């Protein structure tokens, strides 16, 4: 399994496009939105709410990476080959997902370090923020396993690459205050995990741990559901080659 995990990491990290999007894009956005903030102050773009929010936005790329790799492996028949070896279902599931966790933590760290340069106060809460990204990352990585198990490479590009990244951006309250739109939009956003994940990050950075709980519960519930469905979907495709 170690062997297979390191292969997952290599496939992802050796793709320059992945690195560019996964690490570069959130950093560029932090820089860009902060520059806007400097000219036209908007509260959501204040660095102490922007940086934690961007760490969540970056997670949508983890879904894309995992889903792309799995869908490609299915299409190239590499998975078929591996299914004829003694590896078990658990080896595959952990082998595809675990290597993404350290990448997630690096990504969150890179977002915060960028923010430090833009004047974010360095406090011990940053460590909490980086750790508290884990529940949300489980959701996003499991979603990748799910999409990779049921979609083709092309569909993954459309659904994870375009749809999910945009959903994460629009419905998370990173770009604009959800209150501003209100109505059905806000209701929908509150039902989805994205804005809750951002609030968990912001609360962790602010050190207001008492406020974390309702949002964290949303994230954990979504993560648990995603894990269950993704494992079922993976096992299903494994059985129906």
């Amino acid at each position, binding site marked *: 399994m*170690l*062997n*297979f995990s390191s*292969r997952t990491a*290599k*496939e992802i990290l*050796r*793709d320059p496009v992945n690195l560019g999007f996964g690490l570069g894009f959130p950093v560029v956005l932090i820089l860009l939105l902060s520059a806007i903030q400097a000219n036209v102050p908007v509260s959501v773009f204040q660095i102490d709410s922007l940086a934690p929010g961007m760490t969540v936005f970056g997670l949508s790329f983890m879904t894309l990476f995992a889903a792309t790799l799995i869908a*490609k492996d299915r299409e*190239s*028949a*590499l*998975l*078929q*080959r*591996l*299914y*004829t*070896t*003694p*590896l078990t279902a658990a080896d595959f599931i952990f082998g595809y997902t675990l290597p993404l966790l350290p990448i997630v933590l690096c990504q969150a760290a890179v977002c915060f370090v960028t923010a430090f340069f833009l004047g974010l106060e360095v406090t011990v809460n940053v460590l909490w923020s980086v750790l508290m990204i884990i529940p949300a990352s489980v959701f996003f990585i499991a979603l990748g396993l799910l999409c990779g198990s049921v979609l083709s490479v092309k569909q993954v590009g459309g659904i994870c690459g375009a749809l999910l990244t945009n959903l994460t951006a629009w419905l998370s309250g990173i770009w604009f205050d959800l209150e501003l739109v209100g109505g059905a939009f806000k209701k929908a956003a509150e039902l989805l995990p994205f804005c809750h994940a951002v609030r968990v990050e912001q609360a962790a950075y602010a050190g207001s741990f008492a406020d974390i709980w309702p949002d964290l519960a949303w994230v954990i519930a979504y993560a648990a559901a995603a894990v269950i469905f993704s494992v079922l979907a993976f096992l299903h495709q494994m*059985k*129906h*080659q």
Partner: protein
Amino acid sequence: MNAIEIKKLTKKYKDVTAVDGLELSVRQGELFALLGVNGAGKTTTIKMLSCLTSPTSGEALLGGKSIVSQPGEVKRIIGVSPQETAVAPNLTVMENLKLMCGVHGLSKEETRARAQALCEEFELGEVVKRKAGKLSGGWQRRLSIAMALTGDPEILFLDEPTLGLDVIARSELWDTVRALKGKKTIILTTHYMEEAEELSDRVGIMRGGKLLALGTAEELKALAGKEKFEDAFVAIVKGEGK
């Protein structure tokens, strides 16, 4: 003991019966060629024997282990080179080989030795540090077959191993396969009649999921009353055999 015993093996997809009551035994160390036109059920047969899909009904024993009730045991003794070249694109040739060694539970030292030996056997030396995804189709196929051998399998499945290879690469691959003859039980599918005639001990011809004819290339030529094996194949598949 026979390496492979197939009993009434059947696979139905919604409205097609891909493999239909297949009965076959393959001796230990035999090289068996499975022939048939597109859609005859060759790949489906290999997929069932390698525990990729479960049969709708019927059974097969590989090395005495059941593909239905003991897939874990079966997977330990087989090696498969799928019809599509299946390599990890962003890994180098050497890393691909090592990945497969690791997957088969080899230790670090064993992995190094096995990967090195396979590189030499398949003359992968000049591409060993290149990424597999960037290799030409022929090189990828060679790597794909080498990867099937990493677990030192007793039974080897080669699904159209020489598809897309140039004449030289094909003849080299034939040499490699010949060198394995007798040591491993090999099931090979191909659309090249001369390949089957050249390499195999026995040939089975499939059509519509059923085994139409079975025997050595010589026997099949005699059966169809043809001089050339290719003509015999055509006659048998079209049902013109005497």
